[in-house]
């Protein structure tokens, strides 16, 4: 019997640095450290600590899981860039996992997952019955829409929105458990995976020139 694959997953998509190590279905180590800044400095040392806790080293990994957001742009890039570098040097796949999907993981469907998008906005996605694409929206828009029977709402502002929808709320945190990321990535290990890319859902903040260029006369 081949040894169980070892998979390391990590996430810096919000004010935390999180990682989990799986050996097959078995969780060897998991850590979530809240931090408003400093994820770039902390991530690799944290990953090495988690590996050491599981008695493993970098070459032992069969694959990587990485949270691709949505969330803090720089935070998402910290993890995605790290995962792509590790994937290249280890010759192992890096599997991108959506933060919304990780939030919904393990909950009975249908599940509406919510992530705080700042400025009174939410990133939202429905899983299970009538699954939708992830999008940026707000609570009022969501409250006005029709939702399937037996809906569970999880993540940022879940309790308030669930009350408006007559749905069930499950957890107010929009930081997924790193274990959920790892299990989702593990399930995809061995399938062809594109290189992980950030899931932004919000266009880059860039203003076109406000001033019109002068007319050029012949």
């Amino acid at each position, binding site marked *: 019997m081949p040894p169980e694959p070892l998979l390391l997953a990590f996430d810096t998509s919000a004010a935390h640095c999180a990682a989990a190590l799986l050996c097959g279905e078995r969780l060897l180590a998991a850590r979530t450290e809240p931090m408003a800044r400093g994820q770039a400095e902390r991530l690799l040392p944290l990953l*090495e600590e988690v590996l050491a806790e599981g008695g493993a080293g970098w070459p032992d990994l069969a694959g990587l899981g990485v949270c691709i957001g949505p969330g803090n742009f720089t935070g998402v890039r910290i993890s995605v860039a790290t995962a792509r570098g590790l994937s290249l040097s280890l010759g192992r796949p890096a599997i991108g996992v959506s933060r919304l999907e990780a939030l919904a993981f393990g909950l009975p469907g249908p599940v509406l997952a919510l992530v705080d998008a700042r400025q009174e906005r939410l990133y939202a996605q429905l899983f299970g019955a009538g699954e939708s694409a992830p999008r940026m929206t707000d609570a009022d828009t969501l409250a006005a829409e029709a939702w399937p029977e037996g809906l569970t709402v999880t993540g940022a502002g879940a309790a308030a929105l669930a009350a408006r929808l007559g749905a069930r709320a499950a957890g107010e945190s929009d930081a997924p458990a790193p274990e959920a990321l790892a299990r989702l990535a593990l399930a995809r290990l061995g399938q062809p995976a594109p290189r992980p890319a950030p899931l932004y859902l919000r266009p880059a903040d860039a203003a076109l020139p406000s001033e019109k260029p002068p007319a050029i006369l012949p």
Partner: protein
Amino acid sequence: MDRTLTLLGLESSCDDTAAAVVRGRPGGAGEILSSVVSGQAELHADFGGVVPEIAARAHAERLDLCVERALEEAGLSLADVDAIAVTAGPGLIGGVVSGVMCAKGLAAGAGLPLIGVNHLSGHALTPRLTDGLAYPYLMLLVSGGHCQFLAVEGPDSFRRLGGTIDDAPGEAFDKVAKMLALGYPGGPAVEREAAAGDAARFAFPRPLLDRPDCDFSFSGLKTAVRRARDRIVAEKGGLTVQDRADLCAGFQQAVAEVVAEKTRRACRLFAQAHGPRTLAVAGGVAANAVLRAALTGAAEGEGFGFLAPPLRLCTDNGAMIAWAGLEQLGLRGPDDMALGARPRWPLDAAAAAMLGSGRKGAKA
């Protein structure tokens, strides 16, 4: 101890994603085995300048591809590399962070030492990579983001003799191009227009020539061009092609004269300590032929040699980062995995801050 080393270098501090493999001996000659640069000009063209978030998004998804290509073109794998060097600042932080993290992932997975390099030191040490120039020498960095004179005295020893107190000249070229309905990047467009223009038609200022130091200011010059443009537009309802050529020529001439005069002063200041040596240039603005001629003349007039590396090594690239890492590794050893990205990182920590001298310290 000075054995031949092979370094992979990553660069992502502005709008070029780059990776390169360089082989050489610290203090000796260097050989570029590959140098891959993935530019982003087309992503920023509509905005008339680099948009940091757009740049960061592109870097995060291109860095590993550039590294892969650089290794492939060098015919090497990471197992053949001795260390990984990466730009750790100064620059646009979103890009620098992506580069540092990608490099950490590469170094951790391959079990290689990692060294964070100051982007400016990459430019400043390029003449040693390309021409084996001996220390000390005088360096003028003149690009879209930077403008400073450095006495380069060792791989990690730089003395700033002067620099800009506001815009970099490349930035001024871009802004002038934008206000004259020319494309982006503005440098080549302004130079092309200026070739058909009369540099004497507009009396643009020569900022800071009244001060005896080696410092620059380009912000006021840019405003003067805008005022001249507005006067013509108010009168004619637009600019004729000739008006535009004359504005470009006048602006370019003003930049060239100021840079040439400040270069003479920097040469004299440098010569007080070291005697006349070589003036080397780096940065995209060094590609401007008029400016280059003015710089050559100024340096030669002061008894200095003039050295301009090939353009592809004057603009941002990974080879200069690999080379700087190669020269600096023996001096200060590798960084650990807590290496951070620094938006601000002056090369000469002892010099007084000229830009961004607030709570966060000097920019560059």
